[in-house]
């Protein structure tokens, strides 16, 4: 009996383990940890940072970010903009997909049209409403032919925008503007989106293998036009829980762990800092508290008092081990520096609050049920406790802190069923508008505070017509000032990315938007050790 069992077991083991281990030759693979599986490698559908990073390795848009952060042409050779700044004509390079088939303007047009096709399921459709009639076509008010995308010839693509958009080339670096192969979809009519089964890609890497729950392995795309800038043969995104990833890293089985697609275990950070192993990188992201502006007890004066009461320095020093930046404004300084907003000062909070109560004829008792909701994790839990204590000290209010499971949290903030809620925003592309648009309209899906301000909206509208960077930034800074006078949100800190990187990898970088850059990176052929 026992013998039979052992036999069965060994047969099963052979069966399971005969699946090839694609990253066996680890000396040439860069292994990056992710704490979540990759939901999708379809650029039109990617949402999570893990997906966006995989898409970023696999695909490339018309423009890309140069190593100095500026925008340069990628899939296109050059482009012209019409005088009214709404018509862009892109002249494509002669490019090939990873399967050797030629890449044409049709692929870009197909990909974007599909995103705006109401029958195509994606949560990114609204990102392409900047294209003329984008929204109307998506809402089926206009036929798809009316969409402002025209293929002039195989190498020329014309895009008409709804209104001038000075940051359009910047926007084209985002994944939702990347192409997918039209030919592949015509030969796979049953496919609704790119599968993991080796779809053609046009970026520096192509798909090699995927196993659910384990991650993906990518290999170099020999058809990529700029392949000389990439010296790494293969990339693996390995799914591992945070502390497991740290163990694997310490054992030399991972080359990169931590931000952007996994987190370093908070308890290990202090120790790793002592050993000087952690790398830091500014992140274009801000953590803040959303205030439900539709509540009668939370008008501007009260929100301002709340903003003053929060001990940001304390949170950054004690909760976050001093690794992040205190935020007195919404937009991170790495994106829009030198904006002078009012600084919150704790000693004045109490007086502001008393004055607000007097002006508004409010009783302190009205705040008896005030609550702060958040998605529980080590950091948010402690942050909520600090804010609770701050409110007690400044206003003698007992703030209730309420941990909510993530999906319930999103539903509550979307339905404005909360008082205060911890939240955050990380930019997708390098323009302050990315932050300011979050609160442009009440119902845009990102606002969730019930706050809307006409001068603010007008100002953002105006900004898209201005192409001079300085002038535009000035205007957007004024927009930020409106937010920081109205306080629909109470900024707490600006994020900093923290990650570990093996010494054998040189030149691997992290952008402030959370994408890992492998251009120019090299793998030294040596035994792996920690940095």
């Amino acid at each position, binding site marked *: 009996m*026992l013998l039979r*069992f*052992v036999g069965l*077991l060994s047969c*099963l*083991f052979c*069966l*399971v*383990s005969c699946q090839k*281990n694609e990253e066996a030759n680890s000396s040439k693979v860069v292994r990056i940890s992710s704490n979540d*599986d*990759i*939901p*999708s490698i379809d650029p039109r*559908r990617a*949402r*999570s940072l893990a997906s966006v990073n995989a898409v970023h390795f696999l695909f490339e848009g018309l423009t890309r970010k140069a190593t100095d952060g500026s925008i340069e042409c990628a899939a296109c050779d050059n482009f012209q903009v019409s005088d009214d700044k709404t018509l862009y004509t892109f002249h494509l390079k002669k490019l090939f997909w990873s399967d050797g088939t030629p890449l044409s303007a049709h692929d870009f047009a197909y990909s974007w049209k599909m995103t705006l096709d*109401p*029958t195509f*399921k*994606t*949560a990114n459709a*609204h990102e392409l409403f900047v294209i003329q009639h984008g929204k109307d076509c998506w*809402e089926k008010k206009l036929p798809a032919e009316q969409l402002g995308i025209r293929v002039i010839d195989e190498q020329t693509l014309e895009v008409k925008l709804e209104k001038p958009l000075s940051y359009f080339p910047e926007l084209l670096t985002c994944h939702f503007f990347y192409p997918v192969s039209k030919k592949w979809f015509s030969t796979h009519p049953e496919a*609704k*989106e*790119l*599968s*993991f089964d080796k779809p053609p890609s046009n970026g520096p890497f192509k798909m090699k293998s995927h*196993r*659910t*729950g*384990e991650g993906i392995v990518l290999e170099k795309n020999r058809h990529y036009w700029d392949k000389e800038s990439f010296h790494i043969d293969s990339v693996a995104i*390995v*799914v*591992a*829980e945070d*502390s*497991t*990833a740290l*163990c*694997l890293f*310490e*054992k030399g*089985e991972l080359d990169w762990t931590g931000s952007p697609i996994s987190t370093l275990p908070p308890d290990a950070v202090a120790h790793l800092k002592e050993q000087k192993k952690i790398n830091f990188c500014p992140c274009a992201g801000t953590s803040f508290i959303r205030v439900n502006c539709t509540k009668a007890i939370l008008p501007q004066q009260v929100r301002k008092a709340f903003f003053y009461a929060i001990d940001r320095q304390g949170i950054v020093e004690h909760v976050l081990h001093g690794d992040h930046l205190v935020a007195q404004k919404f937009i991170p300084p790495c994106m829009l520096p030198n904006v002078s907003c009012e600084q919150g000062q704790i000693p004045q909070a109490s007086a502001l609050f008393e004055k607000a109560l007097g002006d508004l004829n409010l009783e302190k008792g009205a705040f008896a049920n005030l609550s702060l909701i958040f998605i529980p994790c080590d950091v948010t839990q402690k942050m909520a406790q600090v804010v609770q204590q701050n409110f007690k000290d400044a206003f003698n209010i007992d703030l209730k802190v309420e941990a909510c*499971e*993530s*999906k*319930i949290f*999103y*539903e509550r903030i*979307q339905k404005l069923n909360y008082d205060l809620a911890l939240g*955050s925003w990380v930019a997708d592309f390098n323009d302050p508008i990315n932050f300011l648009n*979050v609160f442009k309209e009440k*119902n*845009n*899906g*990102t*606002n*969730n505070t019930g706050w809307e301000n006409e001068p603010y909206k007008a100002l953002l509208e105006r900004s898209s017509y201005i192409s001079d960077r300085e002038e535009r930034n000035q205007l957007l800074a004024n927009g930020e000032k409106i937010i920081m006078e109205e306080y629909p949100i109470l900024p707490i800190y600006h994020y900093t990315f923290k990650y570990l990187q093996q010494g054998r990898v040189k030149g691997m970088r992290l952008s402030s938007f959370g994408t890992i850059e492998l251009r120019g990176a090299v793998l030294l052929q040596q035994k792996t050790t920690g940095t």
Partner: protein
Amino acid sequence: MKPFCRLILTRFAIAIVTIFCVATVTFFLMKSIPGDPFQDEKGVPEECLKHLRQYWGLEDPLSVQYLRFVKSIFCFDFGPSLKYPAVTVNDIIHQGFPISALLGLEALLIAIPFGMLLGIISAMNHRKFKDSLFRFISVLGVSTPSFVIATLLQFVFAFYLSLFPVARFGTFWHTVLPSVTLAIGPMAMISRLLRASMLDVFNQQYVFTAYAKGLSSGQIIRVHILKNAILPILSYLGPVTTNVLVGSFVVERVFAIPGLGSWFVMGVLNRDYPVIGGLTCFYSMVLITIHSILDLFHVFLDPRVKIDATR
């Protein structure tokens, strides 16, 4: 019809009804949890959410969704996951189950013989030092949560002593620590159960008779005691085998094993309805199958259980 065939047919009919009940309860429970599967930290506009919900048929009346779900069970095709739309639930089961099942079988291979051994030694040395020692160990094993055992084993044997790989799946050595972690709980439980039931059997008259006949201890244990004492373990093995075969969330997370276990929890957290529904039905199918097999064993082992009685 032979009673044996009738037994199998009855079992099969009961199994189908049970799975149907499980599916119904699961469906209405998962639909009653608040939260939208498509909402995320980046915020999706209301009209986009509506589009997505329409596409996936979540805006249809509940009865239509329910019928679609029942149909998917009978075709055993649960469709794509909502969070990971490039993979279907069938893919998840197909790729994850063999890995989880392998770890589970290894765990059983450790848990059953060692658990029984500990139980027998404990019972034979009733109220002596060995008994106390093994009882202490088994209480420890039953009461230590698996995340503690997993992290401890990982730290000591993989990280500190470098005897085994830290995590991930690949070679036989990768499976050792996870299966030991999985085995410890059931092993301790089996040893406790076997000890208790053996002590019961010890006081039966036929055991005294066997001793009086002059049989050796080994023979008595094998032929007279164990055969009778093993029955409670058989009923315990049903749920335990299912649990270890379909994988454990904690063990698979800690050891980064691409098995089935973590999907049960992730499915609920993501409100991934096809994953929740599909995996729950799959789990109940495995559970019922294993229970039926063990019931058959029971019939063979215990002559008091008549085939007719199970009708």
